[in-house]
């Protein structure tokens, strides 16, 4: 219970500090509070002053922070200057698409990565090990943006790219962990006694590696969200990755910071859940 409380407190603290840093960065970014409308020569001095006031330029740093957090706590995530829509509405529209892509990518990436790792360990063949490692290395060394473009050429679903990004990481971790477990003395003894490969794997190798494998699950969520940006931008998928890219190109800082904090919270929660599950598996 205390571990759970500590994890929750740590997550909240990190999000609060992150939001504070985000607000500071947005406030001091070059061009903050300057809009294209100010270039309109038809505007009078009074109109310009009113415009600047609406951009909160005259508020001091403290009132800016208070205003920023007050708005966030009321559920007002601001207005996107690039998309011309409230940020809350944009996120509500696009978040499900990203969750679907990330969920699919993580699930498929784990299935393929773990499958390859198990194959590599149980086959005990140099050729199989070399082939699986080779495929993983090529996937690891190809930028996500290039994979997304190749997916467009092949007219394949963009979500596949997220799986291709996740799978080599899972494969590498899983292969190393399983190899270490397979070298344990009791596993060697079980092999020497002639136990079936599947039985050795399921009863003696996998349970030892499982807690650490679960810890990796949290990291793969972060990797999948990172991959979502180039994938959604280049495959024209209307998710928050594409939104972040558009916001970056249009320097829509408020939207970008809200998106980054949201994704950070999700990855923090995923990491915490994975850690807790790993600990539970170790003690169980």
């Amino acid at each position, binding site marked *: 219970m205390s571990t759970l409380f500590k994890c929750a407190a*740590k997550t909240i*603290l*990190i999000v609060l*500090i*992150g939001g504070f*840093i*985000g607000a500071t*960065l*947005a406030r001091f*970014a*070059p*061009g903050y509070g300057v809009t294209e409308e100010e270039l309109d020569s038809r505007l009078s001095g009074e109109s310009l002053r009113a415009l600047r006031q609406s951009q909160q330029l005259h508020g001091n740093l403290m009132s800016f922070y208070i205003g920023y957090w007050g708005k966030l706590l009321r559920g007002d995530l601001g207005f996107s200057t690039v998309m011309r829509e409230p940020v809350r509405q944009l996120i509500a529209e696009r978040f499900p698409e990203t969750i679907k892509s990330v969920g699919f990518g993580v699930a498929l990436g784990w299935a393929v990565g773990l499958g390859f790792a198990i194959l590599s360990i149980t086959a005990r063949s140099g050729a199989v090990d070399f082939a699986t490692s080779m495929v993983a*290395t*090529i996937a*690891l*060394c*190809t*930028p*996500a*943006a*290039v994979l997304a*473009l190749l997916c467009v*050429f092949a007219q394949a679903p963009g979500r596949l790219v997220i799986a291709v990004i996740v799978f080599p990481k899972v494969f590498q971790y899983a292969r190393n962990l399983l190899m270490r477990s397979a070298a344990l003395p009791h596993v060697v003894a079980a092999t020497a006694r002639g136990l079936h490969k599947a039985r050795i794997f399921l009863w003696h190798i996998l349970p030892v590696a499982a807690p650490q494998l679960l810890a990796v699950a949290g990291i793969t969520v*972060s*990797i999948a*969200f*990172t*991959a979502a*940006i*180039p994938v959604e*931008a*280049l495959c024209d998928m209307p998710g928050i990755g594409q939104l*972040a*890219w558009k*916001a*970056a*190109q249009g*320097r*829509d*800082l408020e939207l*970008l*910071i809200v*998106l*980054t904090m949201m*994704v*950070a919270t999700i*990855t*923090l929660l995923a*990491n915490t859940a994975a850690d807790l599950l790993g600990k539970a598996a170790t003690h169980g």
Partner: protein
Amino acid sequence: MKRAGFAAIVFLALVTLASLLAEVLAPASYAQQFRDAPDAACSRQHPLGTDDLGRDRFSRLLYGTRVSLLLAPAAALLSCTVAGLVGGTAGFAGGWVEEFVMSATDLFLSLPWLFLLITVRALLPLNVAPLTSVVITFALLGSLGWAGAARVVCADTRRLCDSDFMLQARASGSAGPRLLFRHLLPNLKPVLLAQFWISIPVFILSETNLSMLGLGVTEPLPSWGSLLRELESYSVLSARPWQFVPLILLVATVSCFHVAMQREES
């Protein structure tokens, strides 16, 4: 493994050498336009053809390789220096300093890498000179990519601080800077060097992703990322497979870094 590692190092050395000798090897400058031959096929004059603006692809590849291959280690050096300072100080001080610094590191690590990168990149002006865009891109990579390495350095510093030789050094009267510079830092060198080599391929791939999204190195200066942007207009009908040469070179180089690192580990 040893042979593969050696071959990888030789390949990396050759690619680096070719990029350093770009002025000698390239048939033209990276920005020179051959306006009478836009989108030309491979020829003796243009070994990899020309792009749609009539610029020689081979020359741009050589100069682009130089930008990516020289600045990624510079960014890695910056990130390792920050990681060494942050992680080393936290591990050496211990107690609440370590707790605080590692919490800040957790904050950095919890932010998905590309989200953080494009957010901070967007905070800076986007319409900048090509050279400034290169500096901004790699400085950002270096200054934001320290968190993972700092965690490793902190753990190693903690381990070293608890080791017998440090206890003996303290017992002999060593303290403060002497303990730090004479005993701790030389023993941190291997872990810092490993983090340096690990960071290089990560930064190369990050620059490629950023440039392909239009947030990295700007035209006309080439980098691997900006060269690969050309693939966006690739058409199977035009059948110009040499457009994939930068991609092959990038994958081969990053793979060689991985193979070379595995050799060092083994």
